[in-house]
C-alpha cells in the first residue's frame, strides 16, 4: 500500500488539551504529530487519534525508544510502537538521538550521548533494529543538551550525518534544539545546520525555550517547549529553508499549553515562510 506523504506545510503537535477542540472544529492545518507513547493503550485518546487520522495526515514522534542505550533497545516497547504504527499508518515516524534507559530504569528525559565510535556503532545497531521491526525508515531528531562528555570525539552534526549514511535513516532537524545546544556549548548554530545533509532532512521542528541563570551567573537555555518560538530560531529556520527547500515543519508546545489558536498562528507563520519558497520539486523522503 502507498503510504500517505506528509504535506510540505506547517503542522502542529496534537496534545490532549486540544483533543476536544480539534475534533469539534477540524482546524485548517495540513497535518498533526503526536507522541507515540501517549497512544500505546486503548480508550478515548486512541479513539480521538483514529478519528483525527481520517481527516489529517499523522506523524508519530517517539520519546521513549532510547536508541542510544548501551544495553540495546526495549523490544517490548518497540513491539508496542510497531502495533501503533500498524494501526495508525502514520506518514512519518521519528525518534531521538539520545538515551533514557539504563539497567531497566526509564529516565523520563532525552539524555545526551557521548559522541564516540562506540556510541555510533551501538546507535546504528539500535536504529537498524528499529527500522527493521517497523518496516520503514525513521527520522532521527538532533537533541538539545546541557552537558557534553569529555571523551566525545565527533562533532554532533558529523555524528548525525554518519548515522544517516550507515543506517539510511532520515533527520528530523529541530532548529530550536540546534540553537539551544549551540548557545549552551558555544557552537555556531548556523554552521551546525549548514553541515547537516540536506537531502536527509525529512521534517523540521520549531519550539520555544527558556533561560535559567546558574549560581555563577551563567545562563543555560532549556528546551522546555513552553512558549513561542524565539526570534533567533525563526531566523535560523528561514536560513535552513533557503538551503534545504520546503520541508514539513511542526510547531511543538508541550508545557503551558495555550489555546489551539495560538499554535495555529505559530504554524501559519511557518507556513508563510514555506509558501515564500514557491513551488518546490524536492521529493519527500520515502516513508
Amino acid at each position: 500500500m502507498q503510504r500517505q506523504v506528509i504535506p510540505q506545510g506547517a503542522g502542529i503537535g496534537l496534545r490532549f488539551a486540544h483533543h476536544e477542540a480539534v475534533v469539534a472544529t477540524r482546524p485548517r492545518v495540513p497535518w498533526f504529530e503526536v507522541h507515540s507513547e501517549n497512544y500505546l493503550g486503548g480508550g478515548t485518546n486512541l479513539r480521538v487519534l483514529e478519528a483525527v487520522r481520517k481527516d489529517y495526515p499523522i506523524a508519530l514522534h517517539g520519546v521513549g525508544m532510547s536508541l542510544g542505550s548501551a544495553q540495546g533497545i526495549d523490544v517490548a516497547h518497540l513491539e508496542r510502537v510497531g502495533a501503533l504504527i500498524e494501526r495508525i499508518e502514520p506518514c512519518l515516524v521519528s525518534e531521538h538521538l539520545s538515551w533514557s534507559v539504563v539497567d531497566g530504569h526509564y529516565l523520563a528525559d532525552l539524555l545526551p550521548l557521548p559522541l564516540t565510535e562506540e556510541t555510533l556503532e551501538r546507535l546504528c545497531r539500535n536504529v537498524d533494529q528499529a527500522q527493521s521491526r517497523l518496516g520503514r525508515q525513521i527520522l532521527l531528531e538532533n537533541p538539545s543538551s546541557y552537558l557534553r562528555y569529555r571523551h566525545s570525539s565527533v562533532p554532533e552534526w558529523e555524528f548525525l550525518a554518519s548515522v544517516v549514511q550507515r543506517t539510511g535513516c532520515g533527520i528530523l532537524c529541530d532548529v530550536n534544539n540546534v540553537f539551544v545546544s549551540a548557545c549552551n556549548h558555544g557552537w555556531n548554530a548556523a554552521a551546525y545546520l549548514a553541515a547537516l545533509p540536506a537531502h536527509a532532512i525529512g521534517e523540521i521542528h520549531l519550539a520555544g525555550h527558556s533561560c535559567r541563570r546558574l549560581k555563577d551567573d551563567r545562563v543555560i537555555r532549556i528546551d522546555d517547549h513552553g512558549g513561542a518560538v524565539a526570534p533567533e530560531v525563526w531566523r535560523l529556520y528561514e536560513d535552513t529553508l533557503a538551503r534545504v527547500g520546503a520541508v514539513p515543519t511542526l510547531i511543538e508546545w508541550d508545557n503551558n499549553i495555550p489555546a489551539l489558536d495560538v499554535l495555529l498562528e505559530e504554524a501559519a507563520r511557518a507556513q508563510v515562510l514555506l509558501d515564500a519558497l514557491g513551488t518546490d520539486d524536492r521529493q519527500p523522503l520515502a516513508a
Partner: protein
Amino acid sequence: MTGSPSLLEAQRALHRAIVDQEGGDLEQLLASDAWAIAGAVSVYRNTIFSTLTRALRLSYPAVYKLVGSQFFEGAVETYLGKHWPESACLDDFGADFSVFLASFAPAGELFYLADVARLEWAVHQALHAPDVPALRLERLLQLDDARRGAVRFVANPSLRLLAVGTSAEAIWRAVLEHDESALSGMQIARAPRWLIVQRTPDGAAEVVRAEEGEWQLLQLLASGVALQNALDCACRAWPQPAMEEVLARHLAAGRFTDFAA
C-alpha cells in the same frame, strides 16, 4: 573512572548523578566545571521528576486533591526512591503507589487514602484498556443448557473488580465532582465495599457498588471458572434468589467479550 569510559559506564554515571544525586565522578566525565555540571544535572533531574510527578497526578487525581500538591510531591519523591518506571509508557507507571501510600507514615491518619488510590488505579487501567466489543448474547442463547453451563467467559479488558475496606468510592466521587457538601458531611466507614469498575462505550469509567455475592460471581467468571460451577459456588456461599437475573444484568453490561464453550 580511568581512561575513556564506555557508553554503559557513562550512562550509569549520569543515572547515579540524576537519580541518586551521586555526582562525584562527573567532573572526569563531562566537559564543564562543577557549577555548570550541577546546573545541568539539576535541569535533567527537575524535568524527570516533574514528568513522573505529573504522570502520577494524572493517574491519581483524587489522591492529589485530597492531600494537596506539596504533600503529593513529597510522597512521590519518597516513592521514586524505590519505584522507578521500567517502561517509557508512563501509563504503566505507578501500579503500586497505593501499596506505598498504605505504609507511608506521613499519610497514616488518612486510613482511606490507599483504598482511594487502589480505586484510582483500577479506573486508570479501565480507561486505558484495549477496545474489545462486548459479547453478543445471541451467541450464548444458541447453546443448549449443558453447553451453556460449561462456558468459560473472557472478561472485558477494561473490567476491574475491587474489594476495599473503606467508603473509598464515595470519597473518590465527591472529590472529583467537587462535592464539598458531601465531603464535609461524610462519615468515612471502615467496612468492606465491593466495587465493579469498567469503561463505558462512551469512554468514561463507571464505578458501581455491588453486593458481595454478585461481585464474587463476577470474580469467579472473570477468572475462568465455568458458568454453572460459578453459579453453584456463588449461590451456596451467598444465597440470592435471582442470581441468574444478576448474571443477565452483567452480561448485558458487557462485562465479558467472548467465551469458550
